[in-house]
């Protein structure tokens, strides 16, 4: 038997079922909940990172000065051309690249060596593992200040030691001369950050199963061959990540240079350059353009690096 419902009730049911359908959609949609939980982070990031980034990006196309921020006018790519044709910028780029390459390479090699030692079993290993981390645990500004004193040409310990060993005849002003400043800065960074590298690589080493090493001991009695054919390839994913972390840090380096060598152009990095334009010369447009260039430069580096180090010949 068929009955027809009064219109109003039929509408109620239609509405209710639409409402519950909608409710069910939200209830069971994992994507919806994922976005919901991510929302606070996204909003915060947009406010504290996105907004200033966008501001910098916009400023970089204007002739803004600190005192005339309001009446800045659009100047197109003029700032970028100015930065890119400034010899000081290129000196800064060269310094940054030299510093990053040298420090990251040294830190990786030394970090790997230390990690291999710390991975071996011996008495007092736990203590040594903790001790190794000390340089990294000290805030950069403090260790930078400490090294400023150590490098001091009058009463620094570095000169005292080098003189005592007879490696130099007279005290050297390590940080003032552009010949030695870069090496001195790299040394500080290596001292400070190698522990971090060592720890990351040690974590990677411990992921390699012991069995694999035992199989290798049965298959070969050359420690070097086991290192090159087993340890290093299995460590590669860890090293790739460690290097990218370190490289990003090194390319953005600021505090070390700022504390140790101040604002000197010939030993400055791109971040020092940008800060100088922004804060000292108060050329907001120019400084912003430099900042955007640094951003693009590091972004491009990251992409190229990840592309170069992608796993090869792996089928999904």
């Amino acid at each position, binding site marked *: 038997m068929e009955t027809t419902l009064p219109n109003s009730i039929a509408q109620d049911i239609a509405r209710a079922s639409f409402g519950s359908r909608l409710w069910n959609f939200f209830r069971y949609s994992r994507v919806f909940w994922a976005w919901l939980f991510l929302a606070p982070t996204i909003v915060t990031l947009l406010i504290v990172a996105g907004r200033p980034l966008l501001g910098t990006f916009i400023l970089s196309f204007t002739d803004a000065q600190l005192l005339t921020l309001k009446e800045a006018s659009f100047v197109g790519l003029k700032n970028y051309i100015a930065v890119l044709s400034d010899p000081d910028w290129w000196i800064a780029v060269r310094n940054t690249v030299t510093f990053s390459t040298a420090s990251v390479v040294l830190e990786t090699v030394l970090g790997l060596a230390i990690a291999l030692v710390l991975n071996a079993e011996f008495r007092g290993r736990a203590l040594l593992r903790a001790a190794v981390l000390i340089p990294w645990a000290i805030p950069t500004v403090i260790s930078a200040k400490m090294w400023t004193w150590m490098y001091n040409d009058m009463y620094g310990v570095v000169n005292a030691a080098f003189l005592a060993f007879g490696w130099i005849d007279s005290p050297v002003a390590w940080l003032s001369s552009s010949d030695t400043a870069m090496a001195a800065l790299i040394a500080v960074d290596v001292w400070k950050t190698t522990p971090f590298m060592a720890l990351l690589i040690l974590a990677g080493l411990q992921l390699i199963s012991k*069995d*694999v090493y*035992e*199989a290798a*001991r*049965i*298959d*070969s*009695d050359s420690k070097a061959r086991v290192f090159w054919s087993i340890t290093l390839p299995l460590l590669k994913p860890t090293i790739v990540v460690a290097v990218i972390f370190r490289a990003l840090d090194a390319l953005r380096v600021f505090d070390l240079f700022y504390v140790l060598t101040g604002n000197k152009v010939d030993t400055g990095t791109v971040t020092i350059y940008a800060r100088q334009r922004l804060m000292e010369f108060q050329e907001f447009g120019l400084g912003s353009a430099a900042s955007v260039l640094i951003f693009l430069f590091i972004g491009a580096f990251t992409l190229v690096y990840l592309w170069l180090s992608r796993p090869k010949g792996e*089928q999904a």
Partner: protein
Amino acid sequence: MASVVLQNVSKKFGKTEIIQGLNLVVESNQLTVFVGPSGCGKSTILRCIAGLEEVSAGEIRIDGQLVNDVPPFRRGIAMVFQSYALYPHMTVYENMRFGLISLKLPKAEIEKRIAHAAEMLALTPYLQRKPKQLSGGQRQRVAMGRALVRQPKVFLFDEPLSNLDAALRTRMRVEIARLRKSLSATAIYVTHDQVEAMTLADKIVVLRGGKVEQEGTPLDIYHRPANRFVASFIGSPAMNFVPARLKMVGPAGQIEFESGSPLEVKAPTVSGQHEVEFGIRPEHVSLDTNLPGKLRGKVFAIEKLGDQSLVHMHLDGTPQKGMDGAFVARLPGEIEVGSDGELELGFDPSRVHLFETGGAVIPSHF
């Protein structure tokens, strides 16, 4: 000829001595199986032979040569690990080649050996794959292949099949048996699996607490266990033990127990009256009550496996609770018992093993 000889071998980890004064001979061209409860030191012994662990005392000889100070690579051994321990970043082909390059073999010989092993283990289609692109069984075969190509003096297997499911394990077990025939190699094989031990072994070594309890052919150990431990360890379900009294008058005597009529026995090495246990395997009792041996009890569970039933019962005169001391009978077909659960079983007394309370076997015949 002896291939691996262990003389007075001891191994300590820190202060705990895991293996004490072990003497062991592994014959050439035989497959010797180590069995024993978990933690008894099977892997440790194998690893000492491989050179992955240093012995604390004693001597290990492989093919007559003292190898105590020889690194694993130079001992002429190949090992198959329970976890397979394949090199994860290398293809199947590279996994097998790694050890061959160390042996400084000519390229053509390397190719030949790998091709041959791959053929034998049906790995040819997978040579260019990485371990993670293989199934468990295929990885296992790669691990075997990596050992095979080295053509070692001794193969060492540490529970090589224990990570496989039951069906695959059976298949690989048959596969290993087949390979063994065609290779006539010397091998030491550690396993938990009774069936593997019984079917593959030329010789079984039963270990407990780092000591050899008994060694012999599988059937030797099955039929003539040297003590209660070996008797209970080999065979599944395990042997039943029934508390009894042995009363000797001269060389002949009687075994009395509560759940059946006394058994006549000849045990020339003992005299007087003793508390003993007699052991009988679940498969050696039957429903035929005309047999000279008789046992009565109350059934509390029956596991029907189709072709056979495992009947669990409490014998008369034993505690009527729990699994401890329960008696298991393996009977053919599907068994039904009456509602009172009473069941009488018969057995052939020549199947009985007699043990002192200390566990040692009492030489006897019925």
